[in-house]
């Protein structure tokens, strides 16, 4: 099947370039001749390296997105933001408690939230950012961890926040506190660790280490498959 590709105009850093319609912002920049070193990463929307702000033709709004996930439109003006100079408090997780006090101490800016919802609108992951900031203010760490889960740390929320909150850094702390202190422990895991400490499987594994191919193959293909 042959598809004719139409060319459209975009302004990268304010300069005019012609690029194929249907390109993502990253593809458009490369087509234009940019050899990207910063502002590019996984190219699949997982790493948050390619935070970008853009404005579409005829629209007054400045929008934020991931350059690898956003398709260019005719007349779009694009500025990439490869780095966000945000504060990151340092801590030892072992010294912290999963409560509001930790945030008062490490992220006092969180309590300056004016509930304007700009962060939520800026988030390319459609996370309810303001809601998790509010959860932190209430000391609901579990809720904040849950809502912020899909954060990829692109930094767009912090860039737009009028209260200078670094939401994503507060988010990762909430998730780490949840994972370490609030999530219920798995009894099976602890049981297995005990067995391993007692050396339970060493002998059997050692036999497998020395087993010839045909014996191993026989054992492998005859193992019982119990999955759901």
């Amino acid at each position, binding site marked *: *099947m042959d*598809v004719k590709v139409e060319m459209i105009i975009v302004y990268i850093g304010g300069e005019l370039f012609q690029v194929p319609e249907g390109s*993502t912002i990253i593809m458009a920049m*490369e*087509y*234009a*001749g*940019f*050899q*990207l*070193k*910063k502002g*590019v*990463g*996984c*190219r*699949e*929307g*997982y*790493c948050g*390296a390619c935070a970008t702000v853009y404005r579409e033709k005829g629209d007054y709004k400045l929008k934020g997105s991931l350059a690898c*996930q956003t*398709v260019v439109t005719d007349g779009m003006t694009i500025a990439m933001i490869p780095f966000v100079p945000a504060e*990151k408090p*340092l*801590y030892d*997780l072992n010294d912290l408690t999963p409560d509001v006090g930790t945030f008062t101490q490490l992220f006092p800016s969180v309590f300056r939230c004016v509930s304007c919802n700009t962060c939520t609108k800026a988030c390319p992951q459609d996370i309810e950012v303001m809601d998790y900031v509010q959860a932190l203010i209430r000391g609901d760490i579990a809720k904040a961890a849950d809502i912020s*889960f*899909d954060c*990829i740390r692109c930094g767009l929320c912090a860039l737009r926040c009028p209260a200078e909150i670094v939401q994503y850094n507060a988010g*990762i702390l909430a*998730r*780490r*506190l949840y*994972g*370490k202190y609030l*999530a*219920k*422990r*798995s*009894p*099976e*895991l602890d049981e*297995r*660790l005990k067995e*391993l400490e007692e050396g339970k*499987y060493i002998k059997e*594994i050692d036999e*497998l*280490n*020395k087993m010839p191919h045909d014996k*191993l*193959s026989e*054992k*492998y*293909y005859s*193992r019982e498959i*119990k*999955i*759901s």
Partner: protein
Amino acid sequence: MYPEYMNESIKKVEQTRPQRLELAKKHGKNVFPGMGEQERADILAKYHPDYKDDALRELRIGPNKGDKIINEVVDIMESYPRDYPETFDLNKVDIETDILIIGAGSAGLSAAIEASNTDAEVLLITKLRLGDSNSMMAQGGIQAADQADDTPVLHYLDVIGGGHFDNKPELVDALVMDAAPSIKWLEELGVMFDKNEDGSMMVKSGGGTCRNRMHSTRDYTGAGICRVLRDEVYNRSDKIKCIEYSAATELILDDKGQCAGAIIYHLESKQYSIVKAKTVIIATGGFGRLHIRNFETTNHYGATADGLVMGYRAGAKMMFMDSVQYHPTGAVFPEQIVGFLCTEKIRGLGAQPVNKDGELFVYPLEPRDIEASAFIKECENNLGVTTPSDLRGIWLDSPLIEELSGEGTIEKNLPAMLRQFQRFDIDIRKFPMLVFPTLHYQNGGLEIDANAETTIPGLYVAGEASGGIHGRNRLMGNSQLDIIVFGRRAGRNAAVKIADGIQLGELSLKHVTNYIKEVNELGIDKKHISPIVLPDYIPDHVKAKQLSSEFQGTLF
């Protein structure tokens, strides 16, 4: 949205769905018979890309001279260095450290954390940002035999059977025995594993697993782990120094043949620095961005096998570089996300692969190489669907998941996947996904032992850059595990070696000088330069006008 001409095929998928649903309710994952050893061998030989006549060629240089390995890997091995040894004055060391870690995915980050628990000085360098890596992109899960009906012994069998019994046993042993402790370690650092109400782990199956053993953090498993490790490394900034946007381009040895540091190159300022280190850990990941056989890839921008090149030039041996992992389910539509990984967890949750007529043709959870070969077979037999840009694929029937487990299952378990397709107006709760195998993983790499050390004293390798753990085929969830297990081992053992006392001799790049001589003798064109550092997607007509020296060679 899918183009109209695909509707006919989508309808057929919808028509067969009720029957397939019944089948799944009755037999679980056993909706199609699995293959035996002979059947597996046959389908690989006939359809797997590694088995094509022109996939491999003989390597003419270095420790693996004479081996037949992947063409594109031969290319980067039979290449000149980025800069010549005489450019550098090794008497003028810019940075001195105990442990140099190259690469900041989960393997490098784990190594740094473990090493920082000792007295050793740690320097972590990455050519992009901390955490920018394939680790961050992994979706489906991490394996660990911690359930009551499972054992490390069963995990061992799955790993070695999936790898066609070629794996290095001591590495499989280390992998499965360190698995449960690794999960514990991650949880103590604050990783949020998916759990049931009572705190037990929510575990799923994966291709080639005989038990439900896949732990996850929704479908952001790689990120769920990697971002925690990154945060921990930031917090330890007094003990772990980090340099970003700096690629290592060559290893430095000493006159006794011990690894003694690296040449590093800052991408923005274009300055080279000489780093002297008592031990070096390569954690640079794999080769996806080499686009082997022109395959699209799921891999990160930086996956250019730099560590493989550096280690090989320094004399470390490679293992299993004749094999590539093609993930069965890469997106082929929409165009903007071609090659994009559709996690194996989708099949773990019950989605079935079907052809253009809506028919099942393979057991949904064969090991990856087998499953991928079955997809390729179906397409070569004209039972796939062709996209507007002439790619072929088969359907992954995702709506089945919610029919099996209820509404909301996809949003809860596959939020990343749902979001990615929604960005292009496809709702995977209602429509199947069009997929084809995509270049995913470097099965082989630099040979290590159970300590993660190579045959070069003081040189360690962890993660995808290493070889031997997975044989010629890795199972889902074992890479997330191996980067933690061997990352930690590398960090710990490098520190132990330093504590035992290392006396470095005179720094040397003689190995590079000798390598150049050999490349010269082969009559290789001077344009061939490696490591590649970053791929280049500038179109030819633009490239032809980029005349400054900066744009010559493979990158700059």
